[in-house]
């Protein structure tokens, strides 16, 4: 029988004690950054703040924000908090030059990161009895290394598959009797389809999945749970803050517990930067309390979500964040209307289609064009051109109702939408090239 918590004394610590711990760690961390990261020290000086001004988390709002632009300006070593000789690893996002994020780790940083991932695995019901198949990409991407390390800490038998090669994934899943799958939700949905198609549904032993690194909706969770016969858990993180494991879902599946001993979360108004009270929707901002090599303070994630400290039935006391409800930079403004990719996903699932789509926005003769490629699915196809065209028309109408603007829908071959490290490329905004 497995444990309920990976680190019970921390995960169920009384809230007052967590806050004490955060105060103590924040003061120390601000001093560490002031002493070792001239880039941020300069930002503090410009704002007229010194470490003496930060006595507890109540003073957090005095500190300047960090954004992706800062990461680009300071690239590659400008935000290092430790000498290079003390760092043992880098991880990076797949972004193109200028948008790529490179993060650094000491051995201590990796150790704490893996603890966070281990907490997520245990919360999903994992123990040393489990076989954990990690189908996130390995390498620079944080997904594979993070869950791999967490799985080792739990003592689970780890299957380091990396992403892709679906036939081999299924074969290992069947042969090794994998019980927990870790990958992106879009890859999980894709695996679910492939398993069903190949008739392996009765031969897999999966009980749970830990899916993150991209936004997914409740509808998609239902679809994955049904297809794979598992409980699907969300996990959150970004390369800037170490990778997956910043927060994770428990069996309640009503939000992700933030590992508050390591990360201090705030919600701000993305336009004004003002801190919003608990329960309000805004941009998520993280302060890393324990990272040595890449100690980001008040890093703006661009993810829009809500925080809540309502008691959770799992017994964990750490604050919960909602699934990101959109990204302040993923939000597209098309012909003056706000469009969130998650809205499109919801419509597709409501219409009984697979949520594999790609948005293409361009500007022709000063007018935005809005095209959505949707992968054809068995459910939507029939021998009658009229029936397929009818379903396409219905989809266009539902999208118009949801988004408020007209999109041109194109039905495309299954599995033809570009995937990068298992992540579907959802948005191609060609307007930026000329902006």
């Amino acid at each position, binding site marked *: 029988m497995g444990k309920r918590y990976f680190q019970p004394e921390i995960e169920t610590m009384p809230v007052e004690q967590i806050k004490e711990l955060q105060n103590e760690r924040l003061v120390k961390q601000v001093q560490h950054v002031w002493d070792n990261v001239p880039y941020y020290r300069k930002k503090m000086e410009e704002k007229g703040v010194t470490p003496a001004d930060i006595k507890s988390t109540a003073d957090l709002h005095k500190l300047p924000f960090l954004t992706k632009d800062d990461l680009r300006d300071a690239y590659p070593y400008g935000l290092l908090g430790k000498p290079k000789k003390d760092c043992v690893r880098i991880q990076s996002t797949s972004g193109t030059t200028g948008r790529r994020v490179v993060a650094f780790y000491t051995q201590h940083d990796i150790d704490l990161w893996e603890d966070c991932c281990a907490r997520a695995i245990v919360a999903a019901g994992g123990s040393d009895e489990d076989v954990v198949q990690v189908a996130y990409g390995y390498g620079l991407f944080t997904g594979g290394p993070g869950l791999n390390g967490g799985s080792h800490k739990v003592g689970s038998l780890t299957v380091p598959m990396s992403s892709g090669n679906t036939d081999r994934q299924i074969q290992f899943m069947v042969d090794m009797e994998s019980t927990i799958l870790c990958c992106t939700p879009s890859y999980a949905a894709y695996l679910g389809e492939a398993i069903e*198609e190949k008739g392996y549904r009765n031969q897999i032993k999966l009980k749970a999945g830990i899916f993150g690194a991209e936004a997914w909706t409740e509808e998609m969770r239902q679809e994955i749970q049904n297809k794979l016969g598992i409980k699907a858990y969300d996990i959150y993180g970004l390369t800037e803050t170490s990778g997956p494991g910043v927060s994770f879902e428990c069996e309640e599946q009503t939000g992700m517990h933030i590992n508050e001993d390591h990360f201090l979360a705030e919600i701000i108004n993305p336009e004004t930067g003002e801190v919003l009270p608990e329960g309000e929707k805004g941009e998520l901002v993280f302060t890393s309390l324990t990272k040595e090599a890449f100690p980001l303070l008040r890093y703006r994630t661009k993810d829009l979500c809500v925080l809540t400290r309502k008691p959770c039935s799992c017994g964990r006391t750490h604050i919960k964040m909602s699934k990101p409800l959109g990204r302040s930079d993923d939000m597209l403004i098309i012909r003056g209307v706000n469009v969130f990719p998650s809205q499109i996903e919801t419509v597709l699932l409501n219409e009984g289609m697979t949520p594999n789509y790609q948005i293409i926005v361009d500007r022709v003769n000063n007018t935005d064009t809005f095209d959505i490629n949707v992968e*054809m*699915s*068995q459910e939507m*196809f*029939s*021998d*009658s*051109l009229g029936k*397929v*065209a009818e379903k*396409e028309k219905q989809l266009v109408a539902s999208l118009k109702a949801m988004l408020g603007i007209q999109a041109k829908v*194109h*039905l*495309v*071959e*299954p*599995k*033809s939408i570009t995937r990068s490290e298992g992540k579907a490329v959802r948005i191609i905004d060609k307007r930026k090239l000329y902006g």
Partner: protein
Amino acid sequence: MTVKQISVFIENKVGGLATITDVLAQAGVNIRALSIADTSDFGILRLIVDDVFKAGNALRENGHIYSITDVLAVAGDDKPGSIARIVATLAKEGIGMDYAYAFFAKKENLAYMIVRVEEMDKAAKALRENGIHLAGEEEIARL
């Protein structure tokens, strides 16, 4: 008597058709007849092949979406008026066609018309009663 037709989803773009015919060629499937119905951005490729099972497997393995439909394969002599006679027979019974396409079998000197109607049984009966030959799977496979 009916034959099985494979209908495959294709994108309306250059090379869309070739992708499918390549998959079938690789699998050693012979295409007897082919027709495309399309809108401005997608199409349905309808195929009569010598081995439906093999074709279906090859398409699925390559990630294509398809369905199988029963159609009538109506044989007529390769001479003027034979297709007109088939069409007239169905019209007289008030049977509307969803779609139809034809192909020519050189060896047998026959023209085959592939017909899909709502009322398959009624159509088959009417054609037979008018002395029109309906081909089955085996006959098509032998061509």
